[in-house]
């Protein structure tokens, strides 16, 4: 489904594409020189190909994914593609930096730890996929996968992308807007999928936070930090304030909103 649009002004003139990969809606907004021509379509297909490749490699739902084979011991880490090692390294770093709240290993049904790098893979894959759009000259893009996104403006003087941060207590509404020229926005919360984020130290879902939004230069770490902060529960905001290069918003369970970032006191 695609809505055609032409140059119409700073907020309009946005051409959109949607597809579904990894069980998530992938939304692309383009504006500028190449929005609905062959180059744009080719770049969009390039994005989807990156995401599909990541899904084949990392999906814990696919019996033949590298991660599933690694889990079963069918393949050694020594024989894994560099991408797998990169993701595992990110996961391990995230675990340490979050004091164990974020972990790519989680207890399986039988109590044994299983490898589930999904918390790293999404942001990592979308960040890579966005690279397929960079070669479009004179074109701004915003690529979102299920609510986590990479924004770029390549045109001089172009307005920022305006990203609405969903109200976790009323997902049809917006609690904040963030203008982004170049950067990533990731939000973790429970509004959509129920209790899928757990504190890996306890195996429970913290109830303190309704959602955490993190802005940063790179979606990989924006996404990891949003998830880790959510898992840290009541410590979310103080932990986020210790992270360099990020800003964002915490919506607490009681609806209180707190912005954090380098220029807030």
């Amino acid at each position, binding site marked *: *489904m695609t*809505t055609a649009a032409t140059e119409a002004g700073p*907020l*309009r003139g*946005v051409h*959109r594409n949607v597809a579904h990969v990894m069980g*998530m*809606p992938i*939304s692309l907004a383009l504006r500028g020189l190449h929005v609905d021509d062959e180059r744009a379509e080719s770049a969009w297909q390039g994005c989807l190909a990156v995401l599909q490749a990541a899904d084949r490699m990392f999906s814990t739902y696919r019996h033949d994914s590298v991660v599933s084979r690694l*889990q079963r*011991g069918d393949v050694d*880490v*020594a024989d894994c593609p*560099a991408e797998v*090692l990169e993701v*595992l*390294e990110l*996961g*391990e*770093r995230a675990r*340490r930096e979050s*004091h*164990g709240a974020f*972990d790519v290993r989680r207890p399986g049904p039988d109590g044994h*730890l299983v490898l589930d790098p999904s918390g790293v893979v*999404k942001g990592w894959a979308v960040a890579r996929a966005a690279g397929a759009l960079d070669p479009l000259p004179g074109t701004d893009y*915003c690529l979102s996968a299920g*609510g986590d996104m990479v924004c770029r403006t390549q045109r001089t003087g172009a307005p*920022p*992308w*305006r*990203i609405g941060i969903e109200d976790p207590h009323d*997902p*049809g509404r*917006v*609690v904040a*807007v963030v*203008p982004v*020229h170049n*950067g990533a926005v990731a*939000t973790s*919360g429970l*509004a*959509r*999928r129920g209790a899928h984020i757990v504190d*890996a*130290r306890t195996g429970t879902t913290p109830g303190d936070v309704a*959602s955490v939004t993190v*802005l940063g*230069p790179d979606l990989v*770490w924006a996404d990891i930090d949003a998830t880790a902060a959510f898992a840290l529960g009541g410590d979310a905001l103080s*932990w986020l304030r*210790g992270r*360099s*290069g990020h*800003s964002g918003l915490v919506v607490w369970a009681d609806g209180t909103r707190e*912005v954090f*970032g*380098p*220029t807030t006191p």
Partner: protein
Amino acid sequence: MRRISLWVLSTLSVLVLLFGYHTSTSGPQATGSQTSIYSSGSGSSGSGSSGSGSGSSGSSDSGASGSGSTGSSGTTPPASGSTSSGSKTVTGTVAQTRWGPVQVQLKVSNGKVTNVSVVQYPDGNGRDQEINSQALPILTEETINAQSAQIDMVSGATVTSDGYLESLQSALDQAGL
């Protein structure tokens, strides 16, 4: 090249009391909030944790060299592919990532991955890139609908394909609002 001391890597899945586990980015708020976690050796050693941290200082090399003070007992240097009592520790090759070389080690026990550890971290970490006018969220007076917010995209808790049709993003994609 950074190498976390290998001997701490073989400890796994044990409940370890963490003493002095601070990352360089964690600041004062890291104190005392955690007493025990599922540990995987490398992270629990207190030394390895400083290998990443802010990463921007370039001084993290020394931190990763591993003056580990964990009380755990893993002293066996896990050679690549070492096996003991049904478990196996395998060290991957050095992978070149966009942030630098990475080397990962896994411990597999009875067909389960029981430990992930990192032997070598890359030099950069993606957070050090120059930030182009870091934006801050602008709180709305009260929660408002998307149309009056004039937004291009929605960031929220992960929308699945199943839930997409009811989502704000879906409305944006279809109508452009």
